[in-house]
């Protein structure tokens, strides 16, 4: 509790935090709002995009792209502690190194929670405005996708957390985070058999929010082998644990 309270003191008064969160919210609202006018094979997707219960799946897929922003925020928050030398001061003042890493892990849980609640609010808002079916059954039909999104957001941020503690410089850590998640691992995926690469971290995290309409695409081309969201939760939790533990070991072994 003490750790969380201290983290809140630091974050809530940090202008950079609010700027990144405002960007996160604004861009996501815009994308959700304008995605109904996207053209797919000559036809706009239309308001059916906001139909319960598939809305949860579509919205969490949209939110998936913004996890990068949350990851960058985590990197900024952690590397700041190195550049301000406040991590060092807190260890001098009586925190253990493990607590220093855990405090940031709690921040990722909090941010993922905020992202999930935001998605819930957006879903209810757009759903009630545009959905043709607003029965209880429809609303809560696929709401479990929100929990998959939560795990995914934590996973992305934990990868960012690991790179931040590993590299300690914001610019380089952000580059490493983006390069791994968007370039390096996808290249490895091409080299590997689908049966193996579906267990790689970024693919596992991606499987938590499947591409809407993947069934149709699979019908046209050879189907991609990916885990179903429910099956991806377990390996995702495994990767989260590994990333956090690796960060703890790293911080404990090195000079501050």
């Amino acid at each position, binding site marked *: 509790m003490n750790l969380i309270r201290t983290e809140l003191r630091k974050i809530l008064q940090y202008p950079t935090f609010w700027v990144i969160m405002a960007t996160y919210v604004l861009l996501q609202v815009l994308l959700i709002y304008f995605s109904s006018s996207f053209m797919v094979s000559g036809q706009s997707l239309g308001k059916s995009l906001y139909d319960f219960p598939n809305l949860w799946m579509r919205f969490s897929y949209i939110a998936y792209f913004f996890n990068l922003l949350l990851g960058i925020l985590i990197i900024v928050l952690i590397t700041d502690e190195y550049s301000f030398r406040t991590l060092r001061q807190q260890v*001098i003042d009586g925190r253990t190194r493990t607590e220093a890493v855990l405090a940031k892990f709690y921040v990722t849980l909090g941010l993922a929670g905020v992202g999930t609640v935001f998605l819930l609010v957006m879903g209810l808002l757009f759903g009630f405005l545009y959905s043709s079916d607003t029965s209880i059954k429809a609303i809560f039909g696929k709401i479990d996708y929100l929990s998959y999104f939560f795990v995914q957001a934590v996973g992305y941020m934990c990868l960012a957390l690991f790179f931040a503690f590993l590299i300690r410089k914001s610019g380089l850590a952000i580059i490493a985070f983006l390069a791994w998640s968007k370039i390096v691992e996808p290249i490895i995926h091409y080299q590997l058999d689908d049966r193996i690469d579906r267990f790689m971290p970024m693919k596992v995290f991606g499987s938590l929010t499947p591409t809407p309409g993947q069934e149709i695409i699979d019908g046209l081309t050879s189907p991609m082998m990916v885990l179903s969201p429910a099956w991806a939760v377990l390996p995702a939790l495994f990767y989260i644990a590994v990333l956090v533990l690796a960060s703890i070991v790293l911080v404990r072994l090195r000079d*501050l």
Partner: protein
Amino acid sequence: MATVLYLDELSKKYGSLQAVHQLTLQVEAGSIYGLLGPNGSGKTTTLGMVLDVIRPSSGSFLWFGRSMSKETKLRVGALLETPNFYPYLTAKANLQVVADTKQADHGHINKMLDMVGLGTRSHTTFKGFSLGMKQRLAVAAAMLNDPEVLVLDEPTNGLDPQGIAEVRDLITRIAAQGKTILLASHLLDEVEKVCTHVAVLQAGKLKANGPVGDILSTQDQLLISAEELAPVLQLLERLPYVVQFSQDKNSINLSLSEGYTSTDLNRDMFAQGIVLSQLLVRRKSLEAQFLEITQK
């Protein structure tokens, strides 16, 4: 007296550079212990190791006779190298973060800000502070949970004369409360003015340690000459308070034991019918003493 900090052959190696070499030291409760040495002599590395932010390559240390733990950390307030705070937070908010970590009473925050003379600036953000104010805020943070020991690393570094005077005054006031202070400095004059004990470091090695009076002697050097040096030398042999003397062409260099001055020497010479043609008092510079110690 209880031993506050004990270092046992503590060493730190950075690649091939031996930053600290088998340092053994003991800091007693109630002392103001100065760690003296030029820049790069291993002072900060030594403090970093006992403060748990730098991992020793070998050797060990004990705080209050125990190995380092959360409990021992809470009994020590420390400022290492620079004042480390969140630039965008106010002085008060920064101290709230520190108070959380140190499990200190948040009610002490205003009292500490007043103590270091920042009471009226508690709502200014840290980045708006002058270096002297930052340094004083760091002292306030270190004192927040009323620790038994205060570790200060170059507390007056980079300050203007006014800032130096303020910080030194603060240290003296804190010491008067009976706290043990461990102070690293490259300024001899600072250690001489503030400390009771001193350890001299050079290139990571301990060159000398003990009470300041023993290590940094304030003995004066005298230079005398007379028409005839022979009777002078004879008399110097017999005077009990002459510590040592040496002849130098037409003059004699000598030093006296504590409590005696050039007046005593002059009186005794005259009483024996010797008239000195020259009597010069030379204060041995601290820098010269320091070089003497480190070249031993």
